[in-house]
Structure formats: structure tokens, C-alpha cells
């Protein structure tokens, strides 16, 4: 495969919500291109009509009763918020 371009890396980083410095971006570009190059060998495996495996327990749509349980302690949960206001977690504005 062709090596990734700086634009590719910028696009992926944006999708992943990760801010990268210029130096980091270039490093990632080189390493990711190298790693993806090693994956090319997969294309030679014949997988026509082969089902995909998501996980190996062969369980599907596990159901359980919808029972009322005691919730986590509110203060135990909220104490971890980087920024809070009483019972609320504060976030930055979603729109500028």
C-alpha cells in the first residue's frame, strides 16, 4: 500500500479526537505506514464466503431481567470530575 500522507494522519487524528504536534504527526505517519505495510499480506488469504468472527463465545444477544438495583453513590462518581458545579459536571460550550 501507499504510505499515509500528512493529510491522512490529520484526518484520522481528527476522527479520534487527538491533538498531535507536528513532530508527533510525522512520527505517526512513518510508523503507521510501516505497520499497515505489514498487514498487506492478509489480502492473499481467501476469505470468500467466510463469516466474520466478532468474539469466540458464540453467544448472541444475551438478555437479563431489567431489575432495579442500587445506583453508584453520587458523590463517589462526581468527585472524579475535572470541573463540577454542585451536582453537575461542567463542560465547555458545545458551540463556539
Amino acid at each position: 500500500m501507499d504510505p499515509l500522507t500528512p493529510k491522512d494522519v490529520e484526518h484520522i487524528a481528527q476522527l479520534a479526537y487527538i491533538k498531535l504536534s507536528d513532530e508527533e504527526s510525522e512520527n505517526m505517519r512513518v510508523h503507521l505506514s510501516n505497520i499497515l505495510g505489514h498487514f498487506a499480506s492478509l489480502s492473499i488469504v481467501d476469505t470468500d464466503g467466510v463469516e466474520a468472527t466478532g468474539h469466540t463465545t458464540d453467544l448472541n444477544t444475551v438478555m437479563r431481567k431489567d431489575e432495579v438495583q442500587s445506583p453508584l453513590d453520587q458523590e463517589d462518581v462526581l468527585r472524579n470530575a475535572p470541573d463540577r458545579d454542585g451536582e453537575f459536571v461542567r463542560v465547555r460550550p458545545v458551540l463556539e
Partner: protein
Amino acid sequence: MTTQSTNSDFYFSSARELRTKFDQREISSVEATRSMLERISTLEPSLNSYITVTGERALKDAEAADQRLQGTGQEPTPLTGVPIMVKDNFSTKDVETTAASNILKGYIPPYDGTAVSLLKEAGAVILGKGNLDEFAMGSSNESSAFGPVHNPWDVKRVPGGSSGGAAAAVAAGECFMGFGSDTGGSIRQPASLCGVVGMKPTYGLVSRFGLLAFGSSLDQIGPLTRSVADCADALNIISSHDRRDSTSVAAPFTDFAQDINADVAGMKIGVPKEYLVDGIERGVRSAFETSLKTLEDLGAEIIEISLPLTDHALAVYYIIAPSEASANLSRYDGVKYGLGSLDNSTSAQATEAARGKGFGDEVKRRILLGTYALSAGYYDAYYKKAQQVRTLIRREFTDAFLKFDALVTPTSPTTAFKIGEKIDDPFQMYMNDVCTIPVNIAGLPSISVPGGMSDGLPVGLQFIGPQFGDTAVIRVAAAYERATDWHQNHPLI
């Protein structure tokens, strides 16, 4: 080089030996715990296996365990009073849980994961939280935001990873048992590099609830111990069906140790030739060949087989695991917990800044790799293709286990390498897991036991069983352990 002095004999006892000492009133759990805490403070400056030590809690739990051992309250279990470590990607109520990442520094979970709850109920004494590669992504423990762990056999070398803290602590006598997670070898490879026993049970047998997720279809919790019997005892405690994990399954047997004393005469054990890769060290290969002879002497039939898809396992793994990781780690947005970024004008910028600052290089690399493999235009070529080849790899194993009771391979192609030696070449680092990764892809049980020495460093031997064949794996490993004394070697530390 090994040491056998009286003092160190205590530190290097198995959990079963320690429990016998409790029963015979030779020592109490409080005394054992205190002695571990002293040893931890002596050794930690050179090993760095622990991220957090919870001494006060441990002593309180040890007091309660002593009561239980004296017959008041609940019936004791094989782990009652035994000082243990859990990896720092296990959620522990009221005790900081970081996954060795800056993004989670200071995070105090409001709940215990299922494995931790079961260990506490069993009366185990948790000494603290084990160091690891950040979010369990790594094979050398060098990606920890809390600094690397040093191998007790040679502190200039890595302990393996990602459960490097647990492996080093068990090997050095800083706990009697460690608990880790294994996504592509993260229990077995460090167990191999540190000369201890490590087992990844069949996927589904231990609940993942409260394990900070990396690759959910591959992650599995398991023990690192000084004996195969300890390993079976530990699995009996932590394995149970849990409705909070939708991939949790009840074991089709009641005791992991049910066949532990059986011999291996007549068992058919396959040696997949693809695992003896070119990059395998000479010392590892010769230790492996000696181990095969030992198994033959025990009456097992050793037969070379071919599992050709093994060559594709690494690619399959490094597509599936990062893809799942990119989704799992999207929860770390710096809003509800962890590192926040408060000086940005929008929520999106704050998230990008927190993640840019909070994640280390390897974690970013894997998130980006996974994001790429899942992104529009590449999904079919990478993620779907990898999942299809996963089906074929699984089938190849299933077919092999129609003819064989177990497979045997080296655990890792090398012994412990020097800190810094592979850190600049991610792909070279990924090659460390070439023998362990296929097992996770197929969800199989697998154990690594001490299987030789090479230039003063431990070599691991890996047994692989069919799905739910955990007791067969333990049976072969225990027979091998009885026939060899590698597990009695301890580092001079």
C-alpha cells in the same frame, strides 16, 4: 543463578505453602502482609512493579483474614490471608486506578470490578496495584506513564508486558500472587520473561466487568503465580458467570485443578512448526527442545504439526485489537473523570487537548491505527478481512484439537531484552507476541510455565488447549512442573 537462603524461601513460597503456614500457626496473615510491605519498600526503588501500595488497607484486610483463618465467620478459601497484587487496570473502589496512563491519574473508581470483588470475598489481601504498559498496550512495560518496570533477574532488562508489574513482583517475592489481563499475551509473555507461571483461561470464563477495556473480544483476566496449583486455585476463585459481562460464560467444569495430579502418558501433544519462527533465540529453541524430551519421557506423544494461518495472526491481531481499542478508549474525554482540559473554548477542543496530553505514544498509535482500520473506505479491507481470517484461524485450531489434547510452543521468541532496545521500532516490539497472539484470536486457554534458562534468564514454555480445555492445559503444565525444577529458580534480589 539462584538463591536458596532461608529468608528468601519465605518470600518465594507458593500461596499453597503460605496457606499451610497459616493453618499450622507458623505465621499469621498480618505478619506475612507486614513482611511483604517491608520487602516492597526495599525493592521498589529498583523494580517499580507497583503503581500504588495500599499498606493500611492490606493490614486491615489481613486482620480480618486472620479471624477467618481462626474459624470465626466464613469458611476460609485457598486465598484467605494471601497477599496479592492486582494490575492497575482493574477497577478498585476507593483506590486510584490509572491503567498507567496520565489521562486517568487521580481517578478513584466508585466500584470494584467482578474479579476484585471475588478476590476480596475470598479473603485475599490486596497489597496494591501493579504497573503495566499504558492501557495494557505493550510487551515491555516501557509505555507506563509511571516509568518502566525492571526485571528482577537483571534490572537493566524489561519484565515483558503488559502485566510486567505483576510478573516482576511475583518473581521477586513482592507478593504471593499477581493478577493481570491478557489481550495478546500480556500475562503469559511477562510470566515467561520473569520465570513465573501465568495463565489466560478460555475467553469468557472470567468476567471483564471492571477491567478497563482494551480489546474487548480478546481481553481476559488471569493469574500470575509461582506454581500451577496456585494458578488453578486462583482461577477457581475468579471464574464465574457474571451477568454484567455479556460475554461471560460458566465453566463446564467445577474445579480447574480437577486433573492436576493426572499424568500425561498417552496424551497427544502437537508442536506447531510455525511457532518456531526465524527470530527465535538459540537459547529459547534449545530449552524448548529439552522440554519436548521431558514431555516425551513422561509418556506424552509429541508430534509436529502445521498451522499455516499462524503467519497471519499478527496482522489480524494488530487490526482487531487497535480497532476495538479505538472504540473503547473514546470514553476518555476528560469530562466525567480523568485529565480534563479546562482552558479551551469548545467541548471538542477540550477533548482533543485532554487526549493529546493524556495518552502516550503507543496508545495514540493504536487508537489511530484502529480509527484508520474502521474508517470509511478501509473497513472491509482491514477490519472485516481480519475478522474473517480470525474465523479461519479459529477453525484451524478446532481441527487441530480433534487430533491433539494440547499444543506446546515457546511462550516468547526471546528472553528478557534490554530496556530501550526495541522501543523505537513498534513493529519489532509487536513481534514479541507472535507465539501468544493466536491464542487470544481463537479465545483458547493457555498457560506459560518456567521451562528453562538461557544465559541466566528465564525461558517460558506455553501450553495451549481447546476452548474450555483449561483443565487439560493445567494437567500438562503441572506434570511438566513436577518433572522439572525451573519453577524453583529465583532471582538473586
